[in-house]
């Protein structure tokens, strides 16, 4: 697990990891991460990802990179969600407002997506809270 937000320092036991771990425990979340165009900021241990996703990881990653171009272009104008279907999978991007980062999840194309979306939204809200807290602690320590 790694976190290279902010100053680029890898942090162990980051609270963001716990949020992603919770998501990854859901049967139909095959892989998830917080990512941006330039980097995967927080990603759970890839061994917890579904093996099917790992097989397709290179293609998914390339497609994700292209989507992040759109996110970077429009995240400041209210874009908050993108998804695409690739083979038997769907990749959901929940954009973290005012950033170029997104919470990304890979799910089976046949999954009951509506139910997963509720927990994705909960995760996004938790991540925003954590980031806000981290930023406020960072400012206090200056």
């Amino acid at each position, binding site marked *: 697990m790694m976190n290279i937000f902010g100053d680029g320092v890898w942090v162990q036991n980051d609270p963001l990891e716990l949020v992603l771990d*919770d998501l990854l*425990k*859901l*049967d139909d979340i095959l892989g998830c991460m917080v990512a941006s165009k330039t980097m995967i900021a927080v990603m759970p241990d890839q061994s917890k990802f579904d093996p099917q996703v790992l097989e397709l990881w290179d293609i998914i990653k390339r497609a994700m990179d292209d989507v992040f171009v759109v996110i970077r272009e429009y995240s400041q104008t209210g874009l908050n*969600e993108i998804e695409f279907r690739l083979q038997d999978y769907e990749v959901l991007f929940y954009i973290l407002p005012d950033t170029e980062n997104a919470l990304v999840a890979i799910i089976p*194309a*046949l999954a*009951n*997506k*509506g*139910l*997963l*979306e*509720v*927990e*994705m*939204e*909960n995760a996004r809200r938790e991540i925003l809270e954590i980031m806000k807290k981290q930023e406020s602690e960072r400012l206090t320590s200056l």
Partner: protein
Amino acid sequence: MDYKLGETQAAVGISRKWDAREAGRDVARSTLQKLNSSPNFFLLFSTIHYEKYGGFEEFLNGVWDVLPQGTPLVGGTVPGFMNNYGCFTRGATGLAIASKNMDVSIGIGNNTKRSPKKAAKNFSEMINNKKQTNYSNKFLFVLISGSIVPSFPGMGMKRVIKTKIPSSVVSRMLKTSLQVSQKGVGREDIILEEISKQMPDFSIIGGSSIDDNKMEKNYQFFNDKVFTNSVVGLSLQTDSPILLDSQVAVKKTDKVFKAQTAGEKYVINRINNKPATKTLFELLDWPESFMDERLHRRTFFYPILFEKEEEIFPEVIGVLAGNSIVCGFDIKSDDLFIGHSSRKILLNAIKNSVQNITKQGKPDLGLVIYCSSFLEALGRDFFEVRRILMDAYDEAPFVLIAAGGEDFRIPDKIPKHCNETINTAAFSF
């Protein structure tokens, strides 16, 4: 969330823990800590996840580590819920009331899919046999084991079976599956009708217990035991006002058709005297490529409707098997419509429901049963539904559970089990 008024207190709790035992303790603790005295009952709803994280027996053991012995408890698995704390499709929620001014009784009936009438009678007897004070308002909450997609030899557990099997064979297979393995439709319509006969003075709301919308399994809770294929419920008698409302979140379209059922009344084998599936797709202008396992993501926006005694009954298509359309409950008319739902219609329905309830009085506690297909259709817009409810309930506790089918009945009206409705019981203490 807690709420105190006079001698009655209501509370709603939650747990998001993963471990079944810890979650059981947590949901009981977070509910009961807001009550000043022991609860009259405990309603418990959980998502299916605890099956893999310790099991539901351990989950209930956790609840009973905290809940005072002898408290009547009923509940079961649901695909999702919302309450004053948020919207969730993983976790558990509890609802309890402590009051000196109400009678509570609980009941259970087993083998609901094999013997629905018998299960309903046993359930009603248990509740009716308990001596009750003569309170004026009689309310019943029911949770019935919902449909389970049957698994056919060589076909597995599928919602869309393209093999050309005759409708008569589909009907026979479904009937056998219900009798032998209790897999298939939930028979909630039959159960609700029978309970309504046995308990004519009661207003009823309820829902079908299911899993995470996969329709593979579901569990019901009754005191300290876990059951499958059961109806569980709770009667509540009080002099306090009980505010009720039912909303259908579907509009009729001008697409009308004649349907013929094959043996089982929930299997449509012909539409306008032609093979059912193909004709339905023609009516909807849908290409054949839509006939895949993602079908249910589309059909909940286009349910089948029938009318009975001026009430609309929407049915979400459950399974397509060859040219047969398998619905979730008996179709009680030959004249059917195709309905249409949308995000706007759903949100308007919840707004209407809230308006109708608040017109009747100030809700001090709300219990809302909401079709699980809405949860699937709305996704993260489920949070918008919560915003509407939060505005209406203010500080008062409420729980909304998603269900695989919804039940509603008020005395002197026909009992109604269907999909795509929003049923509310609010209590004014």
